[in-house]
């Protein structure tokens, strides 16, 4: 589990590309490439209930589609990631935010 989680942390660290303008598809591809390099598979490949392995969007998550570009003005990215390594899972998540955020819900 220690190795699995270290890999998760490395991949999440690589997700510093979560920033205005980037497409969620690019983040998926980046994560998949990092998995390939480390010869691990994200749970999305093994668990049908989790078809995607990055949750990114504005306003606390918003899926739209994989080509959605994160907004320039303000946004939030929440990569949550897990991998399976030698039978054990690692799992972690972080949240990035940029731009000016209102103190109350709503646009």
């Amino acid at each position, binding site marked *: 589990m220690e190795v699995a989680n270290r890999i998760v942390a490395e991949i999440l660290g690589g997700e510093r590309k979560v920033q205005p303008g980037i497409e969620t598809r690019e983040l998926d591809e980046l994560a998949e490439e990092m998995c390939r390099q480390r010869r691990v598979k994200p749970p*999305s490949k093994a668990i049908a209930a989790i078809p995607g392995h990055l949750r990114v969007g504005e306003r606390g998550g918003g*899926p739209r589609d994989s080509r959605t570009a994160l907004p320039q003005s303000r946004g939030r990215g929440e990569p949550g990631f897990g991998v399976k390594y030698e039978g054990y899972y690692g799992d972690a998540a972080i949240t990035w935010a940029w731009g000016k955020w209102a103190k109350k819900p709503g646009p």
Partner: protein
Amino acid sequence: MGMPPSRGRGGSGRKSPGPDYATEESLYAGIAKVKAGQRLSDISHAVQTVVEGAGFGSSGSLWGHGIGRSLHEDPQIPNFGPPDRGPTMQVGMTFAIEPMTSMGSWQVRILQDGWTAITQDGSCAAHFEHSVALTENGVLILSRL
């Protein structure tokens, strides 16, 4: 530019305008309760205390869990609840602690992709998670570089 997450114990020391700071702080407050002999809900209560103390609400339906041979194992670890309830933590246990908070509704719904979670009212939300192990020497954060 995205703001990178803190790696330090106890959070970033930087207050952000949304619930991010409180969520991250609550994660580390929960992790601090991972001790042999303490009850599982001590984690939940610590998370809730920090989040609500900052004026936010915890997710009512998405929460932490055991982790190991499966991604999601028992026990479940809600992000709220009274202290001193549930199983007693023992050395060798591994958990994923993952507070989720929002500035509005604590109710969430899962979108059609089966993965993306959003708040019911579209309010700003945050999520931080670490996998941890309870060792003879105390809690070890496995998912931190």
